[in-house]
């Protein structure tokens, strides 16, 4: 695998890796690793460093909704303008333009069902180009960002084998 791709794969799984360790794993000098990281950050390929949190383990109530949104695209701007009006709301987690039965997928995090439904009825549906919405609530997360939640895997191999 190419050095750059290899670096991204490591960082995607463990962004806490320091540059010294990173350099060892990739078989390059620490300076080369630092430079590559900086370049990737500058060009916006690495857009941030996050922590995977399993909020189910925390008492704080949290509701995640996936909202299908149908919109009327605008001449000259397509979907970009309406997408921007939606993603600027801080409670919106993600916005994707979709192929298929609807146009935008909006992922929303709120404290309560009421808060989420308030957003949908008062803010989202009120946008003039929005022609319809369908809201789905997440009941349980099994796997997120490639990580299986909840279970820690144990090493069940024999201790010493030839």
């Amino acid at each position, binding site marked *: 695998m190419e050095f750059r791709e290899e670096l991204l794969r490591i960082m995607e799984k463990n962004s806490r890796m320091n540059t010294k360790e990173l350099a060892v794993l990739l078989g390059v000098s620490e300076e080369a690793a630092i430079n590559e990281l900086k370049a990737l950050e500058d060009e916006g390929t690495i857009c941030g460093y996050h922590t995977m949190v399993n909020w189910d383990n925390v008492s704080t109530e949290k509701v995640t909704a996936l909202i299908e949104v149908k919109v009327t695209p605008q001449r000259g701007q397509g979907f970009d303008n309406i997408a921007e009006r939606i993603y600027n709301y801080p409670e919106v987690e993600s916005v994707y333009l979709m192929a298929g039965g609807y146009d935008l997928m909006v992922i929303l995090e709120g404290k309560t069902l009421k808060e989420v439904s308030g957003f949908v009825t008062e803010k989202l549906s009120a946008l003039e180009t929005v022609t319809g919405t369908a809201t789905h609530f997440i009941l349980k997360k099994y796997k997120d960002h490639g990580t299986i939640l909840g279970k820690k895997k144990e*090493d069940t191999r024999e*201790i010493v084998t030839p």
Partner: protein
Amino acid sequence: MRDPLAKKVVDIKPSGIRKFFDIVSEMKDAISLGVGEPDFDTPWHIRDEGIYALEKGKTFYTSNAGLKELREEIAAYLKRTQDIMYDPVSEILVTVGGSEGIDVALRAMCDPGDEVLIPQPSYVSYEPCAVLTGAKPVIINLKPENEFRLTAQEIEEAVTEKTKILVLPFPNNPTGAIMEQSDLEAIREVIIKHDLYVISDEIYGELTYKGKHISIATLPGMQERTILINGFSKAYAMTGWRLGYACGPKNILAQMTKIHQFAIMCAPTTSQYAAIEAVKNGDPDIARMRDSYNMRRRFLLNAFKEMNIECFEPFGAFYVFPCIKEFGMTSEEFATRFLQEDKVAAVPGTAFGDSGEGYLRISYAYSLERLEEAMKRFAHFVEKLRAQKNA
């Protein structure tokens, strides 16, 4: 009552690994670097095929040599990776792991008194399997100055009129050594000159970190005198499925299949169905696991360098083989003290032959976090030993 046991069996030394295992299993809180199998689960699409085969009731014997489709896929795999042709009908036998392939090949080819060249350090089964056939194992002690590769001169020095077979265990367990094209070319001439047959154990063939693995069978004149042993355990993380294969000249394979037929009947059916999926669609899995092993390999080599522990760079399998001679202990003493004092289990090099004396086998089939912790403890242990020596 008379002694129920066969003398040649009783005379075989038990595996050094077994002995060490017994010590390790007493220590509940130890962390281990001792396994010889991948830490990855078998990729899901492969397990899924196994489950599907069970659901469909595919629970009967297969033909002795293995499912035809599997043998065809193995032939296609060897063609695309090594550019070498085997006839799936008469030149491929599906076995219960690579280990059965080694056993059956030796049994098919050795008469009592024949000599079998076995380079060591190497996997523990070659010598006992040769002994059970009545053949005489002749050990070649591989040298650290050659990075534990086999040289033509070493073969030349060990050959007698009775030498018939050379076991070629590369990429090597426990040293991680590989044989590159030029190394193979160098030994080819001696092999042909002395009319030897080769049992080439290539079970770690997919795990090399310096160019692609090359089978000795691809060299001119070698396919007709080579039994190529490979399997699914290491490449696809399928150790528990117990599935391997042997390829070679028709006349030898026919006799190997005969032994396999009487002793084993056929390799496990579920595993064979899963293996078809593995060899057909598993190339990306191999690449992913290989990349991961390679990072851990670099991590360990760097850790030993920082500790000032001598360790040649291994380019195959998932082992490093650091030298611990500076501490003036045997491998077994070192490993036992390391286990007792800093709670890490690493296998003494002598478990793989006398020439492993002064070395440890460290497996990197573990997560990076585990390796990091283990290397911290290694550094601590080594510092302590050096301080004691200087005191």
